[in-house]
């Protein structure tokens, strides 16, 4: 799979993740009483002597004097008191420790469950948070609390502990086995040196048998050795040393709704650890699942949840049978190891259905199949299997069909023989099977044979059969009913399943389409919330991280605030990228369950889910769909962010260009005329000269125009232009513009082709005036000397166009539209032109604000440029009501 000479990236990541984290040391014991706490306190004291800053987070001395003595000299962080059902529970105060920031903290009893209302339900989660914060932790745990060994220990001690610690903690920890030979431990127990809760005394007496203790001791030592092995392997891999480990193993564990599934998952975890292989928990959705009761759904969800907590990928595939589903998934995932449970099914079941395991072994060549016996465990709640027996109406209609066939048969009896009449009865059986399913079909078969017997078989009118040949007919009739109903029931089930998959695919496709419609992040988030809420029938919220904590961005149905607990859960999800809230293992008191939306750059948002009836949030069969939805949502969000970033960069660049252009324009266009004026004034002091006065006049005009343009540009930039729209006669507008530009259009005659009969136009006269002035100005600047400038109005269907035409070099072909950009002076000729580069941008800005469009083009003959302002029909005023006004 990977090149053995190259460092394994995963291993590198694991090692890298260690840097900056605190280091964990676990004092692992085989049983209570071996002296873990004592050893831990000794170890801490040693570190203190080396100059480390060590505090006690929590240490249970259980009143033992020698242990008690060791805690002296330590700073103890006071515990937090939590009121719970009238009791005051004293739990480790994780916030106080985080605030205190010691170098090392001692935390006893890693497997402890925190009081309800704590931040985490489990103490090991507190420890993980401390480690994440860069604080070293010493802790203690007994071997029976290790998640993956939980079943093994229970199998020989017959004592099951409910408090477990995930294996991942040990994988990163330094492990010190606190070892005590079984005989000595038993001695200590007898001497009363081992703390034993009173109610557990009897059970523990058995627990502390010598054989049990030996087995536990062996387990502890093996587990410690395995951890060392793991760490060694990580080291080897990250340093690309040739190691000897299995490559390319892929493990799949098939999870079902049966009660042993959790053990199966743990077994798979052990196998995966041993093989250092990725593993997947596979659940096959069969049509049977539709009849699952509440208990079965819960067990399935719990098993899948456990698998995901233990690091498995969770996959759910729909299939007609379990065997078929497993076989196709194994092929697709190129799995090498399959772990299945063998349920304690009845012999009868296996005879009828064949063993799933046998069929699997036969149908999956090349895959090693591990079969684990499923513990019977607590008997499952009485199976509330809801069978679809069909509605009363189905039976009524079936009966009617049989009656109709009987009547038809008796009428046709003179042309049909008895055997063919029997064939007629196949009709109601087939129809019932295909329309109503198995049971109505069997019913149809039964009453058909009865009716046939009663009405047609001699002696008619009785249910006795004379001719043995006819017995065969009845048997065939019933057999056909059974076979047809089975077939059609299966077809129906497959159709249901296919419909389910199709629904899910359609849901996903629809989801993506909705997301595609969103124009910005807010819309996208709102679309995600609305769609997830609709598809899963939940309430949803979406939050992102802001400097002030989680920020509510979208919700469906609309929600404007979240409770403190929910905010904390959301924050947890956003910061850690892990689920939090109801149904997760963090902040479970929250009404909402938060999932992270993860992208390449980390967690980008959290989505919160809640059900109105405050029941469990997400059904197990919804989890795969939810995960797909969240993946797609995260992708869409990330894509949108990237797009926005890109646009932001482009905008920034454009703004930089504008700023530079503005600076150069201001310095050039303001200074040049000022220079001329100052120079002319100085000359004038020497001798009066009309030519110099002309210069001053012209340059002042230029300055004035430039300042006016800067002011206009500022109005365009500000965006909110106040329009004073009124009916304007183009004759007036053109005349005013020609009048105001007469000084700057030196030497260019203006030709007007504006018919007086044109409709009035609805524009802001002032803005329109500025448009025309700038167009004339531009024409005057770029036209060849002495050529006329033309202003032409043209009425066409749907619009009115007013054009300014010059005779000159024109515009560079293909780049006509660029002239309207700010500070864009197109190099069309070799002459350097004195322009501000603002004029045409103002024309465009003003024109568009008024609802006009602008066009720039080259004219044919004579050569030159044509700038057109186009009035849409809506801005034109038809000359109606004129007579009445006059």
């Amino acid at each position, binding site marked *: 799979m990977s090149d053995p000479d190259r460092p394994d990236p995963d291993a590198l990541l694991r090692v890298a993740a260690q840097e900056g984290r605190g280091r964990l040391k676990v004092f692992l014991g085989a049983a209570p009483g071996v002296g873990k706490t004592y050893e831990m306190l000794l170890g801490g004291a040693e570190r203190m002597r080396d100059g480390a800053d060590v505090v006690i987070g929590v240490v249970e001395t259980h009143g033992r004097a020698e242990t008690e003595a060791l805690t002296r000299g330590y700073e103890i962080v006071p515990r937090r008191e939590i009121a719970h059902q009238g009791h005051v529970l004293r739990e480790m105060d994780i916030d106080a420790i985080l605030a205190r920031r010691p170098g090392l903290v001692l935390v006893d009893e890693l497997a402890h469950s925190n009081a309800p209302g704590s931040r985490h339900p489990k103490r090991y989660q507190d420890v993980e948070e401390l480690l994440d914060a860069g604080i070293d932790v010493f802790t203690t745990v007994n071997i029976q609390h290790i998640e993956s060994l939980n079943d093994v220990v229970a199998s020989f001690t017959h004592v099951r502990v409910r408090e477990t610690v995930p294996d991942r903690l040990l994988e990163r920890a330094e492990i010190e086995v606190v070892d005590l030979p079984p005989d000595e431990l038993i001695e200590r127990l007898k001497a009363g040196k081992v703390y034993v809760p009173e109610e557990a005394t009897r059970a523990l007496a058995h627990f502390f048998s010598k054989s049990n203790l030996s087995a536990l001791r062996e387990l502890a030592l093996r587990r410690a050795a395995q951890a060392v092995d793991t760490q060694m392997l990580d080291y080897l891999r990250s340093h690309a040393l040739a190691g000897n480990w299995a490559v390319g193993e892929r493990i799949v564990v098939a999870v079902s709704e049966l009660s042993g599934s959790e053990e199966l998952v743990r077994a798979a975890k052990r196998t995966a650890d041993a093989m250092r292989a990725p593993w997947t928990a596979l659940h096959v959705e069969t049509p049977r699942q539709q009849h699952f009761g509440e208990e079965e759904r819960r067990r399935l969800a719990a098993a899948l949840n456990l698998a995901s907590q233990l690091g498995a990928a969770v996959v759910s595939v729909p299939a007609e049978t379990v065997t078929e589903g497993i076989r196709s998934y194994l092929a697709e995932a190129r799995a090498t190891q399959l772990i299945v449970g063998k349920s304690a099914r009845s012999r009868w079941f296996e005879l009828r259905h064949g063993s799933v395991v046998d069929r699997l072994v036969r149908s999956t060549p090349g895959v090693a199949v591990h079969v684990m016996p499923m513990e019977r465990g607590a008997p499952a709640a009485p199976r509330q299997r809801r069978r679809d027996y069909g509605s009363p109406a189905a039976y009524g209609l079936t009966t009617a069909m049989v009656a109709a066939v009987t009547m038809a048969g008796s009428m046709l009896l003179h042309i049909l023989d008895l055997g063919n009449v029997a064939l007629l009865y196949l009709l109601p059986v087939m129809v019932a099977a295909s329309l109503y399913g198995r049971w109505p079909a069997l019913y149809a078969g039964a009453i058909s044979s009865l009716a046939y017997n009663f009405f047609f078989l001699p002696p008619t009118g009785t249910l006795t059969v004379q001719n043995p040949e006819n017995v065969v007919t009845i048997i065939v009739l019933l057999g056909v009913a059974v076979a047809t109903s089975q077939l059609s029931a299966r077809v129906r089930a497959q159709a249901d399943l296919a419909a389910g998959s199709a629904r899910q695919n359609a849901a996903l496709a629809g989801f993506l389409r909705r997301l595609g419609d969103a124009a910005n992040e807010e819309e996208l988030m709102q679309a995600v919330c609305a769609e997830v809420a609709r598809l899963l029938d939940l309430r949803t919220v979406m939050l992102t991280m802001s400097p002030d904590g989680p920020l509510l961005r979208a919700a469906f149905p609309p929600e404007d605030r979240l409770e403190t607990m929910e905010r904390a859960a959301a924050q947890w999800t956003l910061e850690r990228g892990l689920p939090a809230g109801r149904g997760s293992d963090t902040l479970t008191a929250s009404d909402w369950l938060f999932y992270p939306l993860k992208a390449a750059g980390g967690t980008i948002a959290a989505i919160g889910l809640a059900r109105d009836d405050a029941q469990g949030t997400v059904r197990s069969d919804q989890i795969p769909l939810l995960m797909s939805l969240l993946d797609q949502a995260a992708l869409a969000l990330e894509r949108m962010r990237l797009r926005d970033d890109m646009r932001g960069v482009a905008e920034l660049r454009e703004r930089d260009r504008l700023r530079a252009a503005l600076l150069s324009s201001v310095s050039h266009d303001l200074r040049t005329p000022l220079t001329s004026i100052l120079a002319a004034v100085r000359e004038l002091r020497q001798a009066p000269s009309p030519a110099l006065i002309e210069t001053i006049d012209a340059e*002042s005009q230029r300055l*004035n125009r430039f300042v006016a343009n800067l002011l206009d540009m500022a109005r365009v930039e500000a965006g909110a232009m106040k329009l*004073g729209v*009124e*009916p*304007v*006669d183009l*004759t*007036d*507008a*053109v*005349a*005013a513009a*020609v009048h105001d530009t007469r000084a700057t259009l030196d030497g260019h005659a203006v030709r*007007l082709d*504006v018919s*007086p009969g044109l409709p*009035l136009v609805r524009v*802001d*006269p*002032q803005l329109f*005036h500025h448009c025309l002035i700038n167009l004339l100005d531009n024409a005057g600047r770029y036209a060849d000397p002495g050529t006329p400038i033309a202003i032409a109005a043209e009425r066409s269907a749907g619009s009115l166009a007013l054009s300014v035409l010059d005779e000159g070099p024109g515009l560079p072909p293909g780049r006509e539209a660029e002239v309207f950009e700010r500070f864009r002076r197109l190099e069309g000729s070799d002459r350097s032109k004195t322009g501000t580069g603002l004029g045409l941008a103002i024309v465009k800005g003003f024109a568009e604000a008024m609802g006009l469009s602008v066009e720039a083009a080259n004219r044919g003959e004579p050569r030159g440029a044509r700038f057109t302002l186009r009035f849409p029909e809506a801005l034109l*005023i038809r*000359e109606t009501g*004129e007579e009445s*006004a*006059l």
Partner: protein
Amino acid sequence: MSSLPAVLVIDDEPHIRRLLSGTLARAGYRVAEAANGRQAIEALPQAQPDVVLLDLGLPDRDGLELIPAIRKQSRAAILVVSAREATEQKVTALDLGAVDYVTKPFDTEELLARVRAALRGRLTAEGGRTGVTAGGVAFDLVNHRVTRDGEEIHLTPKEFAVVAELARFPGRVITHRQLLDAVWPLEHERHIEYLRVVIRNLRQKLEADPARPAIVVNELGVGYRLMGAEG
């Protein structure tokens, strides 16, 4: 001395005041100056101006407020000279009673022409003129006759009403509202398009080149004025 027309220049810019005073004095007017609103009100009784040149951006109060204040104390024609070029400012100033509006930077010659027009309007008493000739067209407001070279030009009643309003104060801007109020007194809505159409028809009948109007001239967004009046 008192026979010379008097002009009061109100502007907070000393350079502008100096320039205007010089120009006006050379043109034969008596000139008084004020740098703000308070000085202007104080100067009115002494200066007895016939024309006031008013800047709107004064340091102590807005020039627009000053227009009614001046009109209360004086019969001077008020000419606004301002850098503010927004249409609504112009219309407000004219509606408040200013006779004209010149934007800075201004052409000195044009300013003098406006001052002359304002003086003419003021000299012809409150009711305005009874007759005027502009661009070769004679307007007889008493007999409702409009002639070019003695030949009568036929105008509709509305056309005559509009042109009569303009001819009463030749050279002065008459705002759209003033024209609409005078000609369509019963219309409550302001149908500028009626006015535009009437003006267009008027130009067809009066102007030598209707595409380049020289007699009925538009003031963008503000109103119309009758240009080229002689005598």
